[in-house]
């Protein structure tokens, strides 16, 4: 609950519209002025290969391959910075059980220069690893961060193809097996590499 509060508060604080308007005190209202492409909010949907793992002091940290992806929304904040919100996921099935990672967090994209298409991203939010079968469920929910890099290949029609690499890591959260606390030091890891389509 506390983590959720932090995430929501962070989103409010970095509200892009408010920030942009504050930067341009003399400007007309944004809605009355056509926005240049670089000022527009973009929506990103990515699909990738990924390796997710449960982490703790007594976990084997073994990453399993699976299908992964991300969805995000970003909007300009400074000349070479975008702020946004991102969700990352990963799924793996096998041996009568399934494993998944889901993480959601505010992020910022830092471009090498205002004209650059390469960016670095980072964010902090909450993540959860789940392993489940018909009989059992193991969950670890932890404060999680993401770091990653990408490159925007601009396409026609305000779109971009974005190869990306990102790593989500969470630690210090409750790990529960069928509801019983296993350790308060549970965590998760998700490494993914894939391609996203970004649309302004």
């Amino acid at each position, binding site marked *: 609950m506390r983590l959720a509060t932090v995430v929501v508060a962070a989103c409010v604080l970095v509200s892009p519209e408010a920030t942009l308007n504050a930067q341009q005190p003399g400007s007309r209202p944004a809605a009355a002025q056509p926005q240049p492409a670089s000022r527009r909010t973009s929506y990103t949907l990515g699909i990738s290969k990924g390796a997710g793992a*449960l*982490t*703790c*002091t*007594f*976990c*084997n*940290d*073994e990453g399993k391959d699976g299908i992964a992806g991300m969805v995000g929304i970003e909007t300009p904040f400074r000349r070479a910075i975008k702020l946004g919100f991102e969700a990352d996921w990963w799924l793996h099935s096998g*041996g*009568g*059980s399934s494993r998944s990672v889901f993480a959601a967090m505010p992020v910022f994209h830092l471009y090498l220069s205002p004209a650059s298409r390469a960016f670095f991203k980072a964010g902090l939010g909450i993540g959860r690893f789940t*392993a*489940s*079968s018909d*009989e*059992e*469920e*193991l969950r670890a929910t932890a404060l999680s961060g993401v770091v990653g890099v990408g490159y925007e290949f601009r396409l026609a029609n305000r779109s971009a193809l974005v190869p990306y690499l990102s790593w989500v*890591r969470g*630690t*210090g959260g409750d790990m*529960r*097996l*069928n509801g*019983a*606390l*296993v*350790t*308060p*030091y549970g*965590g998760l*890891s998700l490494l993914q590499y894939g391609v996203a389509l970004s649309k302004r």
Partner: protein
Amino acid sequence: MRFFRQVQFVGVVAGAIVFTGCLNDLTSPDPSTATPAVAFGIWSPGPNDTCTKELHDAYATVGRDGKRYPTWHPATDPATGCSFGHEHGRDPRGSDLYGMVGAIPFGLANEALETWDATNPRREDHVGHKVEWENDIEMRVNSDIASPLFDVRCDVLVKLHQGTHSKDAFTNNVHELVYHIVCNDGTAMHVTMMTAIGKPGEFVRSCDGTTHVTVGLPTPLNSPHGGGQRLIPDRECILEHMLVGSTRNSNMSAALHESWQTSNAIRSATGHTIASFDPYFQVPSPSRFYDPTLTGITGRPIDMCYATESNGDKARGGACADATANGQITGITWDDPRSPFNGVRRFVDINGNRINNAEGPAVWFTDPYGRNGQREPFAGSVRQVIARINTAIDPHGPTIGRERWYGGLGVRAPN
């Protein structure tokens, strides 16, 4: 990745430091000035033992009660080369837990019982104290979901009084147990207790695992019923598996194996189970079996190497053939160092470990049987240290010590 793992480990290490502090708040005084416990000084050399009693008694430590106790020593004194004729298992100084717990006092729980229930003491011989340990053992987790995700490892150091040379365990189910375990998932216990293994006054026939053999009155007379059981061979096992016809060899493991299957709990005064664990202690070649046809009810396997039944059945092959050179060497007695039936091979199944102490203190004081746990010491209490957690995955340990052999120069039954 390693950085995060290290950061993550800080909490566990901090907890371990606090927990270790619970163990090491007592400095070790000089054993030579401490009051001797009942268990101290009870061993004297036999005819074939070349070490003196004084040298033996120099291997001493001081228990938390401030008394002097015997402790582990090698079978052969390294300075003089003399033999004590018995061994106490694996040198505990190699255990990763030794720095935390120090030398193990033999008989500390027995000593507490002298106070807790002075009219019903339990005094055990010296040679039966057996130490086993292993570092960094890989544990099993009883969850199909969690098992492939975890790498739970533990350091284990145990000591059980497991005499396998006399008639004691035919009736007596109460034996001193010291159990130390520390795992990377936070599971940690440091327990000293008198464990009741099975029912008093009887044992279970080892070769069928089901027949309860009633022998007589136990010591102490008020020995509690315990979980688990003591599987001990009797004459029926010998006749069926050791003395065999000419078409087959003796099956010594079926004839002679002892398995002491403990089921232990530390309980609070309200009856709440704070911790439980159930290691099994195995001895493949004891120097005794129950024989009600003998005056002393204690049969000797080496004697059966020379025996022939009326139908011609006798010991064939295996340990008997090796020890007697197929019958060429005669006159080996049960306490002869040449007898292979001396209890020097042992192993321990660590099995399950459960803690339900998240709301309790790390330090409990129980009666010698591990019951009536309270936060403050009382007359005849024993100090127990148990991690303040509830275990959700109940790490189960493997067998340790199976490959080891503790024999040596002069080591022989009674051992």
